[in-house]
């Protein structure tokens, strides 16, 4: 379906009755070349790139709920490539380049807006860390600017510069970072995959994975058994449950992360501001709502809703950073179930079962990875070899201790990221 200004005006005049679904609603076939379990951002982009980059179109994406119902539709939409460690740097750099061309590639408006991501620092030590991180980003070929307090003030005059506990010592600006419309990203990839022949099958929960003699044969679903030679697991917070269907015990814990949105306000925020010391970050949507969040609730949970203590913490951090928003009303809050890994970095790997692939461990940062993860996962599934930018996302790193990617420097241990 084509989109144009003319079409929007026409539909507005005639009650919006002319829009049609942009992907089919097929019955599952009895066999596919590849089955992708999970229709989140990563599953959909995997299917899209399998078709587009590798010509593998006899593919099904099996989604137990509806497209956009998982974390891809629950996140705070921040896109960035400001990682420091080898492994992560090249991956997120590649992913950001895909973001920059996503709308042209998908011919779909994902509202990708490179409005900048600015991290704040509050001590000399933290500023030195930012200088180091910024250099790592520049070495990777991405952009970073170390800002003085005056430069931060020019960007964001509304924050509190004189907070006694957290005075502003400067910032690290990543101008190519920003936000995108999360649902549109899911829909754009779904549409692009469907157009290339991929079957997107909603309300189809995978309940078992058939393995014979160490080789994948198919899956059991709530809509019947489906045969295949390749199964790609990419189910975010439910990775442990689906992994267990194939006998895997994963280095993953599921935790709930909350997010919040305020009533619509006039334009206030320049871009994304990250107040790491308060575990707080904030941006403003194009509708005017302040979109903000904090840390995970810090106990294992499969309930896509959080508890009051973290809400209080997030509100307190908001007040610390910018008391000017005190009277803004919070409209909504919600939670999503995160696949937390011990070192805070993901896994894109084969398994010991032939034909079974695993993609998980995105913690609270997998939205920005949607294009890169799908691209690299599709490469692994299609060719059997790791795609260079994702070549370090291996499962055995926890066992060997080699090439752990612990960006926060807290140690490779559950519940520290």
């Amino acid at each position, binding site marked *: 379906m084509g989109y144009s200004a003319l079409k929007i005006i026409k539909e507005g005049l005639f009650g919006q009755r002319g829009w049609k679904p942009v992907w089919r609603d097929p019955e599952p076939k009895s066999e596919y070349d590849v089955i992708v379990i999970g229709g989140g951002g990563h599953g959909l982009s995997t299917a899209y790139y399998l078709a587009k980059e590798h010509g593998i179109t006899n593919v099904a994406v099996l989604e137990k709920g509806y497209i956009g119902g998982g974390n891809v539709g629950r996140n705070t939409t921040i896109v960035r490539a400001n990682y420091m460690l080898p492994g992560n740097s090249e991956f997120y750099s590649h992913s950001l380049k895909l973001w920059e061309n996503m709308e042209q590639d998908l011919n779909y408006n994902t509202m990708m807006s490179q409005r900048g991501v600015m991290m704040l620092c509050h001590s000399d030590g933290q500023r030195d860390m930012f200088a180091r991180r910024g250099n790592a980003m520049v070495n990777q070929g991405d952009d970073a600017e170390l800002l003085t307090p005056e430069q931060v003030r020019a960007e964001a005059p509304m924050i509190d510069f004189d907070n006694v506990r957290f005075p502003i010592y400067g910032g690290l600006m990543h101008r190519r970072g920003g936000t995108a419309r999360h649902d549109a990203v899911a829909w754009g990839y779904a549409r692009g995959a469907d157009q290339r022949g991929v079957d997107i099958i909603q309300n189809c929960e995978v309940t078992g994975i058939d393995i014979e003699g160490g080789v994948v044969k198919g899956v059991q679903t709530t809509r019947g058994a489906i045969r295949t030679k390749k199964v790609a697991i990419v189910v975010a917070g*439910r990775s*442990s*449950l689906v992994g267990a269907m194939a006998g895997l*015990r*994963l*280095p*993953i*814990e*599921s935790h709930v992360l909350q997010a919040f949105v305020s009533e619509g306000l006039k334009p206030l925020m320049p871009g994304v501001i990250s107040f790491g010391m308060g575990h707080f970050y904030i941006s403003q949507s194009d509708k005017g709502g302040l979109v903000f969040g904090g840390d995970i609730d*810090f*106990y*294992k*949970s*499969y*309930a896509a809703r959080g*508890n009051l*203590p973290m809400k209080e913490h997030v509100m307190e951090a908001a007040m610390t950073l910018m008391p000017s928003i005190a009277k803004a009303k919070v409209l909504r809050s919600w939670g999503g179930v995160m696949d937390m890994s*011990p070192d805070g970095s993901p896994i894109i790997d084969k398994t010991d079962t032939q034909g079974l692939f695993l993609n998980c461990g995105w913690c609270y940062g997998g939205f920005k990875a949607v294009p890169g993860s799908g691209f690299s996962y599709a490469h692994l599934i299609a060719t059997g070899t790791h795609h260079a930018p994702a070549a370090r996302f291996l499962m055995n790193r*926890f*066992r060997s201790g080699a090439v752990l990617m612990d960006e926060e420097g807290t140690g*490779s*241990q*559950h*519940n520290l990221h």
Partner: protein
Amino acid sequence: MRLNCPICGERDRREFYYKGDAVELDRPDPNAGSEAWDDYLHNRDNPAGETRDLWHHESGCGAWLVVTRNTLTHEVLRCELAGANTQ
């Protein structure tokens, strides 16, 4: 969420520090080998449903608790002293 400390009674979640899965009570032998240690440190059952976690009554009596909880409903089923578990 409220936890029923066997020593202090029912208290608000804010009084407790969360350590992680109670698997940490089953520490392998130092010589158990890298596979056992990898499994202990990193791999988790991560159930959707009943689970056992370690909590510390940080702002209360200081006891370590094993809390049995439902990860889908956040219902707290049992709170026991961790010491009783390990001895």
